[in-house]
């Protein structure tokens, strides 16, 4: 039969000699390799006791920001969900009623906001699409779990606590910071 490629090799079933047949040299050789590796520098780190250095623009677990008064910034506009290539984001909008002005920034807010972290590819398109500077990806590494259900993150895990703010200044690009300097560009007056 004609070979499809020129990389094919003809298999030869060679008789092993005595030393090869008792396997001892091969086993010893393997042990030597194992022992050598014991004294080498380890290529893994013991997370979470030690943490590997990560880039400044690392994209980890999301955060839903609150504004300076502690009100949720997200207005459930759906732009993050439509930008998401993995279709990981779902939300349900609700109307703010009187008395909730301290809780929600705009007249509409997300009553549920869920990110399926198993679908998410951490591309950061959601924070790029967000017109309200509400969602950011942070330097936090996503915790692991045994079940799949725990990976659907709701607002309880995504919204930052009022007394424990998440710093995202490194995620704001120079262009955005420049834009925010000029008051006349602002939409929320």
């Amino acid at each position, binding site marked *: 039969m004609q070979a499809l490629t020129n990389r094919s090799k003809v298999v030869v079933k060679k008789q092993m000699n005595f030393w090869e047949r008792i396997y001892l040299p091969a086993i010893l050789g393997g042990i030597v390799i194992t022992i050598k590796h014991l004294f080498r520098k380890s290529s893994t780190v013991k997370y979470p006791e030690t943490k590997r250095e990560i880039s400044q623009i690392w994209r980890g677990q999301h955060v839903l920001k609150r504004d300076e008064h502690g009100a949720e910034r997200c207005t459930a506009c759906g732009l993050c969900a439509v930008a998401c290539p993995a279709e990981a984001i779902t939300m349900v909008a609700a109307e703010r009623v009187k008395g909730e002005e301290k809780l929600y920034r705009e007249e509409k807010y997300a009553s549920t906001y869920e990110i399926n972290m198993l679908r998410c590819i951490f591309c950061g398109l959601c924070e790029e699409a967000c017109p309200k500077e509400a969602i950011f990806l942070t330097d936090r590494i996503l915790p692991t779990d045994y079940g799949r259900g725990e990976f659907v993150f709701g607002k309880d895990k995504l919204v930052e606590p009022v007394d424990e703010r998440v710093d995202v200044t490194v995620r704001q690009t120079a262009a955005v910071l420049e834009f925010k300097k000029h008051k006349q560009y602002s939409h929320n*007056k």
Partner: protein
Amino acid sequence: MAKVTIDGVEVEVADGTTILNAARQIGGDLVPPAMCYYSTLKDSGGKCRVCLVKVTAGSAKDPRPMPKLVASCRTPVMDGMVVQNITSPEVLEARKGVVEFLLLNHPLDCPVCDQAGECDLQNLAYEHGAAKTRYEEDRRTFEKIDIGDKIKLHMTRCILCYRCTYVADQLTPERVHGVLGRGDHSEISTYIAKAVDNDYSGNMIDVCPVGALTDKTFRFKSRVWFTNPMDAHRDCPKCSGKVVLWMKGEEVLRVSARKDQYGEVKEYICNECRYDHKNVKDWTVEGPRHIDRHSVIAQGHYERADLITLKKEIERQIEFEKGKPLPEPNPSLTA
């Protein structure tokens, strides 16, 4: 009959046709945008000024150019008229200015607004407007008003196109809302918050080019691009019964009239169809509505077509993209 040249394209139209309608007979990019003109509402137009065009030759008898840009929705054609729309930088500059004026008091709360995604002003600003505003003053603000129990009025978003008052005047027996005040203080309102409730009042929602009048039953339910628009009809004794169902799964979130490629409703629907039949079983669903592929609503929206009918459908869409009226859909597509 009058022969008129728009952007170098010659077309023969009936006497008394406006420049805008002559351009629509040609179709394509040279059709001026319109925020207040509405073909099915008498006397509409002449208010928003986005349809401004330049007339470089008035007529065959008097070929002098018109001294200023004219509103194409209100100017009738003359034989031998030469019009420039997108070929004239002056027109584009003026239109950019008009968009800036329309946006002066517009709150730009698109992330909150239910109209986002199908908003004429959003499209207009995207195509013609500048990305930045030079306006530093505070915008005018109004309280939200409930017009009846089904319509919400956000006066802050209104651009005063007067379309809704024409709907009330021409479609309903008595008009109970109108424009109060003058100039900068004008606002759409009802007299002492009198409720608008008659059989065709819901059409105000459809004719509104912005999100000033929105359906309260659909308020914040879903963004339009997460819904699935389906053509449907039912036997209605009051109206044609031809509607679009905006569905999410099996649930009908909103019922609206069918709009053509210029965003205009040709067949108005009654309030019973619009509000009282939010069940798929009440409707004969014809199939997915054709959505222009440039629209955000086309995201995740699939129209079923087998390969044989696909060619016909593509030809139909090419006609549509040219701005021609949408030909009859393929019967096999809507089966």
